[in-house]
């Protein structure tokens, strides 16, 4: 038996040596001149424009196959919800439907799967649906998967997206994805309650705090927000431009949890918790629903844009389904004194990306543009990032009797206020550290957020190197 083991061992070593010899790739830069067929959105109508243009594909080096093959079939990987979009596409483009093969996948596992494909040199899909936090990981040296879309997408399409919506997709000047939907922060409020107690919707954080103080002083049983998880906390942090996960380049992050901006946000949240007007429960926790929503104690809530349709909702499936008709008001979040307009953090929102290995970038990019901007978005579940599509989407949303007034202007305005300095990235898993160092100590142990910023900073900085990231610490957030 021993000899067998040695034999196998030797065999493996020989195999390894052979593989090592032939595994070294030979990168080369390709420049291609192509005729590009583009789908462009003009005032909500889809126009197909055929342009002949020089496409310098230096951004797409080996191993993309060249010349490109417009007849090559493409593989599209989406989540279950987006299957619907692909069905609609096939219906509208029957002539190309045969070229597109659709599969569901679990995007959380995908970055790992790509590493396997890279090692055997095949298996990659051509188009994927994923959050920008995966896209940046898929762009790094090890994964090297996503391709630059900028040669394939017209400026007109790019300009149609909400301001800053594409920021998480643009890394080092390359456009790695088109946003599917946005999940910016919005202030939701209870219109009858506001009237009953005579409060005005706050436009600055000082006014917001003042409402909290008034509620505490008069002993009203109301809350003006919640801080029970990272999602709800990061809304307040990003609003104050607190640089905890601010991506500067593909591999550089600014992380400065003890920055003045973070301190002022933390002090405000601490104060509001002390006043008893900020619930220390997750807004999606059944306990929160029972204590504050069902009992009509929630005056305001600062949460993501999809809360309106899906959490307040007004249907049996929505968590706050007891919300009455005409009760829900929406407002632009407050701003700090030194800000021109407010900022918020994303709570969700995904994107479409293309493989750099695709043989048919024409079809792949055309599909991506349609998915992000086309008919599917008009009735999509969440707010489209592409404004002309979002306008159509608003027509369906506005019909919901839940809202006290037309919500579209608020949806539209807040879409441009996602702070580009808050960029979730799979390579920088800040959320468990925020849970452990900010949320749990405050919620379960009665600590102060302000005192926890330093431990948080200490926990965040070492996350960088394993993800291949350089962390700069004594930095001010950029001016966006």
């Amino acid at each position: 038996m021993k000899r067998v083991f040695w034999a196998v061992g030797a065999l493996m070593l020989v195999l390894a040596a052979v593989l090592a010899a032939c595994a070294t790739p030979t990168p080369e830069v390709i420049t291609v001149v192509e005729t590009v067929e583009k789908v462009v959105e003009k005032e909500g109508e889809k126009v197909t424009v055929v342009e002949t243009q020089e496409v310098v594909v230096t951004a797409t080096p080996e191993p993309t196959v060249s010349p490109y093959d417009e007849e090559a079939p493409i593989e599209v990987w989406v989540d279950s919800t987006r299957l619907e979009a692909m069905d609609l596409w096939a219906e509208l483009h029957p002539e190309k439907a045969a070229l597109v093969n659709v599969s569901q996948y679990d995007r959380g596992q995908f970055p790992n799967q790509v590493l396997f494909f890279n090692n055997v040199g095949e298996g990659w899909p051509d188009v994927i649906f994923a959050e920008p936090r995966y896209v940046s990981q898929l762009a790094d040296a090890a994964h090297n998967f996503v391709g630059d879309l900028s040669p394939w997408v017209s400026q007109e399409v790019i300009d149609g997206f909400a301001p800053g919506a594409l920021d998480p997709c643009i890394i080092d000047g390359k456009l790695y994805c088109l946003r599917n939907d946005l999940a910016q922060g919005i202030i939701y409020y209870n219109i009858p309650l506001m009237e009953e107690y005579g409060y005005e919707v706050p436009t600055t954080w000082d006014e917001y705090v003042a409402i909290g103080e008034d509620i505490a002083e008069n002993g009203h049983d109301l809350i003006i927000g919640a801080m029970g998880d990272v999602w709800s906390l990061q809304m307040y942090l990003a609003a104050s431009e607190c640089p905890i996960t601010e991506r500067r380049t593909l591999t550089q992050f600014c992380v400065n949890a003890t920055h003045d901006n973070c301190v002022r946000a933390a002090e405000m949240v601490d104060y509001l918790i002390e006043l008893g007007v900020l619930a220390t429960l997750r807004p999606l926790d059944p306990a929160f629903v029972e204590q504050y929503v069902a009992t009509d104690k929630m005056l305001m809530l600062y949460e993501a844009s999809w809360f309106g349709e899906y959490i307040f909702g007004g249907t049996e499936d929505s968590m706050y389904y007891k919300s009455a008709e005409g009760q829900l008001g929406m407002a632009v979040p407050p701003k700090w004194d030194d800000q021109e307009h407010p900022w918020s953090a994303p709570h969700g929102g995904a994107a479409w990306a293309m493989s750099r290995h695709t043989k048919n970038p024409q079809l792949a990019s055309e599909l991506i543009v349609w998915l992000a901007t086309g008919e599917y978005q008009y009735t999509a579940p969440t707010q489209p990032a592409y404004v002309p599509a979002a306008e159509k989407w608003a027509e369906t949303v506005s019909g919901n009797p839940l809202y006290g007034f037309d919500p579209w202007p608020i949806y539209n305005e807040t879409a441009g206020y996602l702070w580009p300095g808050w960029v979730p990235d799979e390579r920088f898993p800040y959320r468990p550290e925020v849970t452990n160092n900010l949320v749990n100590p405050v919620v379960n142990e009665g600590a102060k957020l302000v005192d926890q910023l330093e431990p948080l900073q200490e926990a965040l900085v070492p996350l960088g190197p394993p993800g291949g990231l350089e962390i700069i610490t004594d930095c001010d957030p950029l001016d966006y």
Partner: protein
Amino acid sequence: MTANSVASTSGVQTAAGQRKKFKLNLGYILILPYTVGMLLFGVGPSLYALVFSFSKFEGGKPQYLRAGFSNFVTAYTDYRFIPALKNVLSFVALTVPIGVFGAVFLALLMHATRDRLNKFLRTIYFLPGAVTGSVLVLIFIFLLDPMISPFGFLMRPFGWEAQQDVITRRTVVYVFVLIRFFSSAGGWIAIFYGALNGLSKEILEAAQIDGCNAWQLAWYVKRPLISSYVIYMLITMFTQSMQIVVEPSLIASATYGDSPVTPYWSLNQLASNLQTLGGNFGLSATIALLQVVMCAVAAILVITKTDYYKTDVRN
């Protein structure tokens, strides 16, 4: 002892000759398919992984045997390595004794009398292990939320009102132990029960005639007789607990991605984290190697101490 029960005593002459003749061939034939499969799908990949641990990875692809020991240095000096090791060891220290004693105790208790209840209970104990993945996440979203849990009445006295009171960074390890027991005990109970059924009735009856009561019978007669299985469980449980990965990711999902469990809570998680982040499979291989070595040392202790491989046929 069992010799007594074997009735026949004839045919002494022929046995010796035939035994020599056939012995050589059959054993090897029986073991051959497994050996081939094991080399192809077990030993081969393992050795390949061993090669990886000494390989450099650039752009996610291996440059074989060009890393020296640098992967070992990188992985073992990662600042998350020691915390992960501590987490895993504390989990092992809790879950292995609880699991082994629990399963042996319940199996013996069940086997103490034979009634129809047993089959039903065994199935109940076993089935939770059949639930995995997202569905287990769904169950635990509800189970660990005092507001909506069937066991809420046990949690509310502690002043726990929401899931985040139950799952904190201090309690997670106990939650993991609970989940592990929930999902794995039943399988072991069934195996022990099967082993107990496999015991020779003559022994048990003889012990009863000798005046053993049920407890003495269980502890002094049955337990030693299934000790081989208990050691098997001990080793398996130890290695599986060293590799804990399902429970932390389960809790991470069940808390809506907002859990106190980092994606590098355990060694296995750290390994996949390192591997997915940089595409360096060498790093995860070095951590795997460490896990194997630790388990092997534990196993060597148990196996040589108990002379486990000694069978009646060969030492």
